[in-house]
């Protein structure tokens, strides 16, 4: 009982002390307000990247894409800021979150409250973007969402986020579903990782096929940490599918394809998500044998946009990026970083006032009218990107290797699909 009395006493004293301190601290805290009438000496672009961990292979190229844009702007005298009718030098502040959402959360807060960034671009993917959403909204900081496709980010009451890179992943498989239906492929196996990015695609495929009277013969989720696919592949094989669709991150796609190669199983069609985005990585880790005749999303630069009205077009970007970063392969994340920075550039250019909301309004006005090296910039009223289109690509043999060709839709096709995939 003595302990209980003491405990109560301690709790009371703590509560009282915390209350007094709370009042004092709240009153003492300075209120940060953004001054928008005077031109800043530099435009601060804040972002995070992951040098290690699960997201590093995508995050580092995305940062390189942003760096490329910053260098381009500064070479031309800075980024044009419409509110001040002049170009202003750009400074990039990038912190390393090591693929940790907890670390990312504190670093986003640091970018906003201590670095006072003007443009904020979150790290790669939904998991590392999520911690930024609420903190950005609270501090009235517009988030230029580069590669996150989270379904929970874009809500009517949050104007402080704009999809500037990739489209919500729920829309990605639309061409794939159309291709399956067009090819009369009725026995489809879908294996997907239990995360937002992949589950949204799986749901689209499932509902899209069912709309055409096709029920997948295999429809199973697996934890995102899965790297052992032997049993799963055998289970899929037991359903005798005409097409196998594996939806994961590159850390899943690579072991899936490698296991499939060594399993002795052969499917007429195999689709994975990331080979089209990170072809060099897959060539290195999976190899020609494992990739041959498999399908994937064809993303820029595989899908080139020659006619653009903002920044470089896709071939120009590829050439310039290779020159600027000779050791870095040109991948989709790099292009997404560049494309997102271009959207920020457009916001600074067209905003009548140097405020975050003014930039957001300016982007709503140009929605559907801007095309960059990664495609059309078009957003919903909630700010989600909806202009991007991802055709279906297939690895087809070339002299001494394989290359990804667009096989659907026909209007964009650069080759004819090889279906069913040959056994050798």
């Amino acid at each position, binding site marked *: 009982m003595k302990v209980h009395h003491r405990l109560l006493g301690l709790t009371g004293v703590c509560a009282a002390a915390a209350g007094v301190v709370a009042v004092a601290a709240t009153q003492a805290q300075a209120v940060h307000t953004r001054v928008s009438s005077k031109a800043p000496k530099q435009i601060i672009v804040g972002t995070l990247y992951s040098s290690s961990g699960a997201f590093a292979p995508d995050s580092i190229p995305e940062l390189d894409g942003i760096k490329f844009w910053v260098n381009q702007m500064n070479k031309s005298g800075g980024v044009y800021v419409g509110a001040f009718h002049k170009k202003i030098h750009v400074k990039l502040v990038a*912190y390393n979150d090591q693929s940790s959402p907890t670390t990312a*959360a504190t670093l986003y807060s640091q970018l906003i409250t201590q670095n006072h960034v003007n443009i904020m671009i979150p790290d790669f993917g939904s998991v590392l973007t999520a911690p930024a959403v609420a903190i950005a909204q609270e501090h009235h900081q517009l988030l230029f969402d580069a590669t996150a496709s989270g379904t929970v980010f874009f809500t009517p009451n949050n104007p402080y986020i704009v999809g500037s890179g990739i489209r919500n992943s729920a829309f990605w498989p639309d061409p794939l579903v159309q291709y399956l239906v067009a090819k009369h492929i009725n026995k489809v196996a879908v294996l997907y990782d239990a995360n937002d990015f992949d589950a949204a695609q799986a749901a689209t495929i499932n509902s899209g096929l069912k709309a055409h009277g096709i029920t997948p013969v295999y429809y199973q989720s697996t934890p995102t940490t899965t790297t052992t696919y032997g049993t799963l592949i055998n289970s899929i094989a037991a359903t005798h599918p005409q097409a196998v669709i594996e939806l994961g991150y590159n850390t899943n796609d690579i072991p899936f394809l490698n296991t499939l190669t060594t399993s002795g199983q052969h499917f007429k069609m195999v689709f994975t998500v990331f080979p089209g985005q990170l072809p060099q990585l897959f060539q290195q880790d999976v190899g020609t044998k494992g990739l041959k005749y498999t399908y994937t999303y064809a993303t820029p630069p595989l899908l080139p946009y020659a006619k653009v009205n903002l920044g470089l077009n896709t071939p120009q970007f590829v050439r310039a990026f290779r020159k600027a970063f000779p050791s870095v392969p040109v991948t989709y994340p790099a292009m997404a970083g560049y494309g997102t920075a271009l959207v920020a550039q457009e916001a600074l250019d067209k905003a009548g006032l140097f405020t975050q909301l003014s930039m957001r309004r300016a982007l709503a006005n140009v929605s559907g009218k801007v095309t960059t090296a990664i495609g059309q910039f078009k957003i919903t009223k909630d700010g989600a990107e909806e202009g991007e289109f991802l055709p279906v690509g297939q690895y087809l043999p070339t002299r001494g290797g394989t290359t990804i060709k667009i096989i659907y839709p026909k209007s964009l096709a650069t080759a004819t699909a090889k279906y069913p995939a040959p056994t050798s």
Partner: protein
Amino acid sequence: MPNVAAGASGQRATSAQIWRRRAIDLASVLVPTVLFALARTVDSNLLLLVSIMVYVVLAQGVNVIYGFTGYLPFGYVGFFGAGAYGAYVAVAHLGANAVEATALGGVAAVLVGVVLIPLLRLRGAYFAIASLAAALALSSIVSNPAVTSVTNGPYGADLTRVFSSGGSYWTAVVIVALAMVSVVALRRSRLGLLLRAVRADQVSASCAGVNVVAARTGAWLLSALLAGLAGAVYAWSISVFYPTAVFDTTISLFAIVFALFGGVGTVLGPVVGAVVLYYVYNAIGVNDPQYFQLIFGVVIVIIALFLPGGLAALALGARRRLGARRGLGGAQPVGGSDVR
């Protein structure tokens, strides 16, 4: 009537010693609480401060279960994630406000703790591995598309409608105070004494009439409660999160290392460990992670080889030497280490 009372160590203490001990206990609770409450006046990065407080609470939770029972929970993050998702379910389905949701997050973690009580039948590495497996299983269950209607499955949790950086900050301060009070009370209580007896020699304690299962279960559930509250307030502070973010095993590792660095079995050791190492992590790890990993690794090796009692052992040694010089001998350290 003699002015003496029985202390937790079983020795009779004088009135002066009792009051001195109470003053130390009070300071052990008040100093960290007040410092965290004032921290926002010198650091505007509230999320950083909340993260540090979350790790302080987690380190104290590890302190409770490892420092008092010897069970090293590598899957401690399971309670953290359960707390985060408990808060989400409370807001999304029960219409709870943020403070109620935080409390319910703690309750959710305790419920998970109750389900996992059989793990306490295991010991050593077996327990550590089993707790890790349980956390991974829990993560897979929460993120399974089949439970989307409850947890929103893999699509992530959204608490933005109750988001309040100030509210989550002050709630975190209160939870730190609660964690400190819990550890102080446990250390001075009969339960704490029983746990120390069990940790020293389970068979002897049992023969002496100690209910080993009940004592361990008490510490286990208290530890789960602290982690659940920490997870819930963390979820509130970031508001949008995925299962991978709140079931990240790095969270367990950080909490364990912070507790060991500061000194398990003490009151202030885990606080010092969490604050120092998390600040070092943010100062060095962000821009030069390779150096941080090197430093972190070296620190762990040094602790394991030369300082198993953590920083608290250093303080205790220095105090004993000082006491010996003054002829006092055997003085109690601030925050004490009589648990070990």
